[in-house]
């Protein structure tokens, strides 16, 4: 996989900020990416040393789109993949750090 296609975006929420205390950073990644791809992408793009990568598939859920003047239309929220990357001690990703 191309290295620029792997990481979609960093995720910064209350929960992930908490994880940063353990030097773990959270990303939304491409569905097709595997742990090895993600490790390589993070190491090359942020110039850090990655200790481990955990990934999970976030299921798509049935949703409804409501629009004024139209009947609610059932749609499916897209499935996506989340990766939690643990960095080596002393390393950090400034772009996501709180």
């Amino acid at each position, binding site marked *: 996989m191309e290295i620029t296609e792997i990481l979609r975006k960093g995720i*910064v929420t*209350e929960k*992930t900020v908490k994880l940063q205390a353990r030097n773990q950073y959270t990303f939304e990644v491409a569905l097709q990416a595997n742990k090895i791809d993600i490790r390589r992408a993070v190491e090359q793009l942020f110039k850090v040393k990655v200790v481990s990568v955990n990934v999970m598939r976030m299921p798509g859920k049935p949703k409804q789109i409501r629009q004024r003047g139209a009947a609610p239309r059932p749609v499916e929220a897209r499935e996506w993949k989340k990766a939690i990357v643990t960095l080596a001690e002393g390393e950090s990703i400034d772009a996501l*750090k*709180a």
Partner: protein
Amino acid sequence: MKVSVEKLPNSEAVLNVDLTWDEVQKASDKAYKKLVKTVDIQGFRRGKAPRAILERRVGKEYIYQEGLDELISEAYKNALSENDLTPISQPTLDAPAFEMEKDYHFSLVVPIVTPVKLADYKSMHFEREEVTVSSEEVEKELESFQNRSVEWKSIERPVEYGDRIKADLKLTSGEQQISDLKDNAFEIANDRKGLFTGMDEHILGMKVGESKSFTTTIPEDYSNTKLAGKEANYDVTLHLVETKELPALDDEFAKKVSDDQFDTLEDVRKALGDNILEQKKRTNTEELRNKILKELIEKSEFVIHPTLIEEEVHEMEHQFGHMLEQQHLNMDQYLKMVNKTHEEYHQELHPEAKERVKQQLVLEQLAREENITVDANEIEALFNAYEQIGQNLPRTEEQIRALMISFRREKTLSRLLELTTDPDPDEESEEVAEEDAAVVNAEAAAIAGETEATENEAEESEAATSLPGNETTETVE
């Protein structure tokens, strides 16, 4: 935080404030804690976002600026209370852009009330004038009562002065019809003013059922310039002549005018005399107060900031605006009527506003020096007093403050009167009436501006609409 206060001779104060970087940073911490509770950031509940995230969202400088603003207003407040300054309006801020990691300096300029240097009022002395009531004054009052209970009797004779007639009256000037009244009652007077000047002498001598046409000239100074100086053509048809019948001055009359309170005319005379004396005394005291206050103002030293006068002018205009509203006018219409621009009108109010400001300042300073305060009980009593005269005032904070201020002024004035005059010979009666008088006076003070304006207005409106019909309603009352 280092604050230095410098008073300028033009009644302004300059506050110079020095802040260290540490203080700025602490303030920004506070600002962050406040801000974070109000800003929505995705992924965080309100108040839970870390500082770095918030900085990314609203900008680092913004948080610091918030903190600085807080510091500035705090410094301002402290400086005011520590140095006992009374600001008149918002201060102007001279704050340079701040830089990170550096100490910060800013200055504020604020117009303040400079305390009045009171003249030595304790050494001032005024004489209370004697008041007496002459029998003529009583008779005059009695006569006006007599006039009020006049009865009109229909009579068969030509019209004379003082009669009341009922007539059709049509008034035209050239092509224009000014008024067309049917069966209108009015009194014949030989000194009529305004539109109908000169009408009465033509009507003189007419008999019931008679019709007459005649021409007069509308006076040059009539308020409607379109009609002033023009000829007015009258068509008058007389329907009824009535003559005035005064009730006889006897005990019967006494009973009637006093609602059976008094049996004899002598009693009524006495009561009237007392009334007049009371009233004279009151106006006398009022005059004396004004005199003392004026003297005190003249001898005291003032430094007044123009803003204060400006504000008073606006206040006066506002009150006057309310007055106009009651007559279904607005400010613009009024200004057009008297042919003035807004600026001219303001200019005109200026001297009086200045005088009022001086009065307020003097009384406030005096109250401070004499330690005159108003407590909650007194205010409560005032509210009750107002209720008794049928005025239910809302007990809002604003209203209470306004009452407190006017009542304190009232008290201060009374104290000033005590200090500068010999005690009133019949102090006792005054003592009882003091509360009431205070209420009345406070009320009077509250609407003083309006009354003055009313008088002017009333005159004008009367001149503009002095139809015969109006005058009769007045006499009937």
